[in-house]
C-alpha cells in the first residue's frame, strides 16, 4: 500500500522525502505509507503511539436518576459510585508520527476527539493507555484561560506572557510587537470586556503566538478575526513551520486547513479515519 500513496503523491507533483543535512537520519527513512512526502527532513518531532484518552465528566446524569437527595442517599448507602460521573473514551488508539516542518490539520465532527488529542500531545491530559513522545515542550496556543476580562489589554499582555513562561526582559521586548500585530492600537488601555469579539481574538492570538514554539498546537484560533488578520495569522504559522517547527491546527474552516497544512488527519469518533494529503482527505471528508 505504501507504493500506492507514493505514486499518488508523485502524480500530485510532490517531492519525495529528502533527508535533511544536519539531522540524525537513519539509512531507512520513515515508513511513508501513511503520510505525504513533501517533508523537508526525516526527524520526528511528535510520536503518538496507540493513544487512549479517557475523560471523567461530572454532572451528566440521565433523566431517571436525576439528583434528588433521597436518590443520592440510597446510592451512598448501596455504595454505588456517583452516577453523574461518566467516563468518556474520547481518543481510542491513535497512532501517527509528525516530522519537522509538518503543518498537520486535524478535521472531524464535533466531539470526535480533536481538542482532546491536542491537549494530550501538549502533555496536559494524562494518557489512559499508550504514550505521546515529543521533542521539547509542545504548547497549546491557548493563553485565553489565563487572561482576565476585567483587566486592560495592557495588563493582559503582561499576564499572558508570564503565563507562557517568559522572563520580564522578554515581556518588555515582545510587548510592542504584540500590540502592533493585534492591531488594537489605543484599545490596549481599555479592559478586554469592552473589546469586540474579533478584537479579543486578535489580541489572544497575538499574545499566544508571540512566544517561539518548537511544536505549536492551535485549536480554532483562526476562526475569528477579519480577512486581513487571517492573512497575518496564516503568515505567522508559515513562519513557525519554516523555523523547523511542527504545527497542529484544529479548525472547522476547511479552507484554512487546505491553505496552511501539508497533511491532514481525519478523526472520527476518536479514531483516525484518514491521514494524508490535504486535498484528498478533505474531499473524502466532505463526501462524508
Amino acid at each position: 500500500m505504501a507504493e500506492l500513496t507514493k505514486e499518488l503523491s508523485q502524480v500530485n507533483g510532490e517531492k519525495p522525502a529528502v533527508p535533511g543535512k544536519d539531522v540524525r537520519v537513519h539509512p531507512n527513512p520513515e515508513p511513508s505509507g501513511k503520510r505525504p512526502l513533501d517533508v523537508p527532513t526525516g526527524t520526528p518531532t511528535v510520536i503518538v503511539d496507540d493513544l487512549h484518552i479517557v475523560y471523567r465528566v461530572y454532572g451528566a446524569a440521565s433523566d431517571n436518576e436525576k439528583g434528588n437527595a433521597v436518590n443520592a442517599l440510597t446510592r451512598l448507602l448501596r455504595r454505588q459510585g456517583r452516577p453523574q460521573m461518566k467516563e468518556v473514551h474520547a481518543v481510542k488508539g491513535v497512532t501517527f508520527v509528525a516530522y519537522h516542518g509538518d503543518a498537520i490539520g486535524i478535521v472531524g465532527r464535533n466531539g470526535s476527539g480533536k481538542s482532546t488529542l491536542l491537549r494530550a500531545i501538549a502533555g496536559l491530559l494524562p494518557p489512559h493507555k499508550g504514550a505521546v513522545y515529543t521533542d521539547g515542550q509542545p504548547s497549546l496556543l491557548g493563553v485565553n484561560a489565563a487572561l482576565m476580562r476585567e483587566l486592560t489589554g495592557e495588563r493582559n499582555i503582561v499576564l499572558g506572557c508570564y503565563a507562557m513562561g517568559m522572563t520580564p526582559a522578554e515581556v518588555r521586548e515582545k510587548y510592542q510587537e504584540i500590540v502592533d500585530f493585534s492591531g488594537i492600537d489605543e484599545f490596549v488601555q481599555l479592559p478586554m470586556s469592552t473589546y469586540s469579539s474579533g478584537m479579543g481574538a486578535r489580541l489572544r492570538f497575538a499574545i499566544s503566538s508571540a512566544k517561539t514554539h518548537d511544536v505549536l498546537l492551535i485549536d480554532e484560533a483562526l476562526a475569528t478575526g477579519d480577512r486581513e488578520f487571517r492573512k497575518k495569522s496564516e503568515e505567522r504559522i508559515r513562519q513557525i513551520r519554516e523555523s523547523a517547527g511542527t504545527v497542529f491546527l484544529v479548525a472547522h474552516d476547511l479552507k484554512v486547513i487546505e491553505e496552511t497544512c501539508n497533511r491532514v488527519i481525519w478523526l472520527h469518533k476518536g479514531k483516525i479515519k484518514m491521514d494524508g494529503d490535504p486535498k484528498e482527505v478533505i474531499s473524502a471528508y466532505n463526501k462524508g
Partner: protein
Amino acid sequence: MSQPESAVADAQAGGRSGQEPLAKLAKRYGLRRAIARPRFPVYLRQLWERRHFILTYATSRNVSKYSSSALGQLWQVLTPLLNAAIYFVMFGVILGGSKDIINYPAFLLTGMFVFTYTQRTITAGAKSISGNLSMIRALHFPRASLPLAYTIQELQQLAISMGVLLALVVATQEWPTWYWLMIPVVLLLQTMFNIGAGLVIARLGATMRDLNQLLPFITRTWLYASGVFFSIQDKVVKSAELPQWVANVMYLNPAASYIEWMREILIKTYRPEFGHHPPTMVWVSCVFWAVFALGFGFWYFWRAEERYGRG
C-alpha cells in the same frame, strides 16, 4: 482523486508491523514522554522561575476582583473595617465580652484578623486547582503556582488589613512598643503555614469535589476552637475545670498559636505574667507549624503534579 479508504486502513494497521516499535523510534531521536513529573528539586526551581507569573497573577486577581464595584480598591480597606465593626457589636456590646479580659476589643480584633488570614487562604486554596481547570488544560506551568498565587493574593490583602488592625488597636490605647517589630516575624511564620496548608487543601480540592461545601463548617469549627472570642485558658481551665493539658493542646493548634503570639505583642494587659513574649510552647508551635506545613505542603502537592488536569 480520493484514496480508497481500505488502503488507508491497511496503511495504518499494517504500516507499523515489521517496523521498529514507536517507543524505540522515540528513544532513538531523543523524544521524551509528554507527561512526566520533574524531580522535586527541579520542580522547586521551575516554580522559582515562574515567580513573575505568580506575582502578576495574584495582583491581577486582586485588581479584577473589585473592578466592577463603584468603590473599587477601597473595598480592600472597607471589608476588614466592616468585619471589625460587626464582631465588635456582636461580641463586645451585645454578648458583653468577657469580664476577665481587660482590653476585649483589641483581644477580639487581633484574633479575628489573624484567623481570617488563614481561613481565607485555605478557602481560596481549595478552589485554586478545581476553579482553574481550563488554564491547567491549556498552559504549562508548575501547578503549585496557582495555590501560591492565591496565598500571595491574600497576603496582599493582609497588608491592608494589618494597617486597619494596628490603627484600631492604637485606638483602644495600646501604644506601639518595640515589640511591634516582631509582627512581621509572626506574619512570616503564619504565611509559611498558610502556603503549606493552601497547597495541601488545593490537592484535596482537586479531587474531592464536596470539599468546597464542607469547608465552611470545618473553618467555623476551627474558629471556635482557636479562642478568637474567648481566652482558652479562662474558659477551659477556670470555667470548665478541665485539666491544664487540654488548654495546652488547644494552644498547639496553628491558628491559636499565631493568634496568641500576636496578642502578646499587641496587648500590654494580655497575660501579663509572660510580658510581651509568648510562652515557649506557643512560639515553638508557631515555628514548628510553619516549617512542617511548608515542607509537607510542597511535597504533598508535587506528588500529584501530573494528575491535576484530569478533573
